[in-house]
């Protein structure tokens, strides 16, 4: 339906272009070449960055080899480097952030696109997007002065009391740690995920909703049966965008995660992320091997990001293949 209307819009213009002959073709050609150049520049940039980081980390690659990935000793004084705790911290904090943020973000998106009063939709949507514009250092400071004390005084004791039998919620209550990092990231990626999801839900054709209502579905059933299945792949895309932001976030998480290169099951324990260690140590790093090891952490972050994105893309592809429509 939509495609037809597009064609009818384009047709008179293309006739005009045909009448103009070669010039229009030349314009189209130039247009295509230039946009292709722009698109290509992304690939060039990516490859260039990977190569540069690879070159910079040559020394460390030669010295530690695979041990860099499996080692957990990061000691600039002894010039011995292992990055496993950083990989662990990055992946776990991002996953934790997704676990917290995805249900909330989807709730926001569903409310704003399906349920909210039209007068509320615009201002609330605007407020959500405003959260995305807050600089990360502000989130970090808020984390130090508000979130961490609150976690230490109220949330962590409560979690330890009720769920303390799980290894996830054991150990001293410090406020700063993996839990604080995950929550800060969750807050930061919520606007991204929810505003993209809202757009995706808005794009669901009204005919689907009307059909479901016609069959006697309740509001909840309309969303579950007609809207969400149609929007599935778009929603996964929104989550991937959020994940990308969580993986690369540096400033805010550094300020609350506790920055200890240790691997601990407990969410109360301090941790460290790849982006944070680079930001923290690169400026003052001296010595060839040290700099090279930091560059290799960058390379690793690059690969972890690519791997997680590929995985998420595969997920979208798989989800997209499933038959659409839900069951009552």
């Amino acid at each position: 339906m939509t495609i037809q209307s597009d064609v009818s819009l384009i047709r008179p213009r293309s006739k005009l272009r045909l009448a103009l002959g070669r010039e229009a073709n030349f314009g189209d050609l130039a247009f295509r070449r230039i946009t292709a150049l722009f698109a290509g520049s992304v690939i060039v940039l990516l490859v260039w960055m990977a190569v540069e980081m690879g070159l910079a980390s040559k020394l460390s690659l030669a010295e530690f080899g695979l041990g860099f990935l499996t080692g957990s000793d990061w000691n600039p004084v002894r010039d011995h480097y292992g990055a496993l705790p950083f990989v662990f911290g990055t992946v776990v904090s991002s996953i934790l952030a997704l676990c917290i943020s995805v249900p909330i973000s989807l709730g926001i998106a569903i409310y704003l696109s399906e349920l909210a009063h039209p007068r509320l939709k615009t201002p609330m949507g605007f407020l959500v997007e405003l959260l995305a514009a807050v600089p990360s250092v502000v989130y970090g400071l808020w984390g130090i002065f508000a979130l961490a004390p609150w976690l230490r005084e109220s949330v962590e004791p409560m979690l330890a009391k009720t769920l303390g039998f799980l290894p996830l919620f054991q150990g001293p209550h410090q406020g700063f740690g993996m839990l604080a990092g995950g929550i800060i990231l969750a807050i930061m990626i919520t606007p991204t995920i929810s505003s993209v999801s809202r757009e995706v839900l808005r794009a669901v054709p009204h005919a689907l909703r009307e059909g479901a209502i016609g069959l006697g579905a309740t509001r909840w059933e309309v969303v579950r049966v007609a809207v969400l299945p149609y929007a599935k792949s778009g929603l996964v895309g929104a989550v991937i965008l959020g994940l990308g932001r969580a993986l690369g976030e540096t400033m805010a998480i550094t300020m609350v995660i506790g920055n200890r290169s240790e691997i601990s099951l407990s969410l109360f324990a301090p941790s460290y992320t790849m982006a944070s260690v680079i930001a923290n140590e690169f400026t003052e790093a001296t010595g060839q091997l040290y700099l090279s090891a930091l560059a290799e952490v960058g390379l690793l972050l690059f690969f972890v990001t690519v791997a997680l994105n590929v995985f998420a893309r595969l997920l979208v592809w798989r989800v997209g293949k499933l038959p659409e429509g839900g069951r009552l």
Partner: protein
Amino acid sequence: MFFGRRELLVLAAGLSFACNKPAPAGDSKGSAASPAPVPSQAGPISLNGAGATFPNPLYSKWIAEYNKQFPNIRINYQPIGSGGGIRQIIAGTVDFGATDAPMKEDESKQAPAKLFHIPATIGAVVISYKVPEVTEPLKLSPDVLADIYLGKIKKWNDPKISADNKDAKLPAKDISVVYRTDGSGTTNVFTDYLSAVSAEWKEKVGVGKSVKWPTGLGAKGNDGVTGQLTTTPYTIGYIERAYATQNKLPMAELKNTAGKFVAPTTAAISAAAEGVEMPAELYVSLVNSSAETAYPISGYSYLLVYADAKDGTKGEAIAKYLWWALHDGQKFSESLDYAPLPAKVVTLVEARLKELTAGGKKLL
């Protein structure tokens, strides 16, 4: 005509400055013994420097004051960190570098020519804490401090702490140890001190701008540590003195080599510098000074310049600026919580500045 007007402008600026601030601080012709050389008025000269963040407030003040007196000299200083400062001066992308820790031997070897270390100021690292029960300044012995950071003393009421603080009501709470997670000169000075007083620290951890901490939480920057010290009860942390003063945080008194508990006052920091002999290369560690009234954790911060400047005009401007910083500049240090260089070090630095050349020609 053109030059005349420019000179008038400079004079006017200098006069208005002198009027606004009657303190002797700004007057370039103040000290008769060491008249500050007036830089060339020929045209705008811009100098670029980069490096340590630790002395940045002081360097920014110097640059602003110097620019008021000599508007044709524009100095840019980027506080990108000591490591960055060393890398940039080696690469020749800046006219002077700045670092808290002296360059290592392999770094000096990378430099294309000889670099001078010019001691610029002295900064102290203070131990701060948040223990609501403690009202008098906490007293700490070196081995106690090392044991806290080694994770061996875990409670505030540990007998080793109370031995030095007999009157204090120390609570039976866990000590929450905080350290700087970003590489910093502050950490370098602090770990230098711990290595000097504890053999176990020296062997297990060592000295560095970033080290593998045996215990504790890492906070980013002086402000991050200050944040934890203000929000988290039962925390101990180390920060630059300026941050503790400005945030009115308590500062522990440390036992020095003479066995006295000393608070980090400007006098005690200067005393530390007086008590340490400055060697010919003009860099030395100040921690654990043997002077009787010395505060034990402080360190010089250095500027790095090439002994022989490539560009004569710039070289001359830098040499004159450094001369100014060495004399007039020192007066700004105390109000910004740094300690001025001791007189005997000033004499040594004067001699070093006079060795600066450009193409073999003396600059001062």
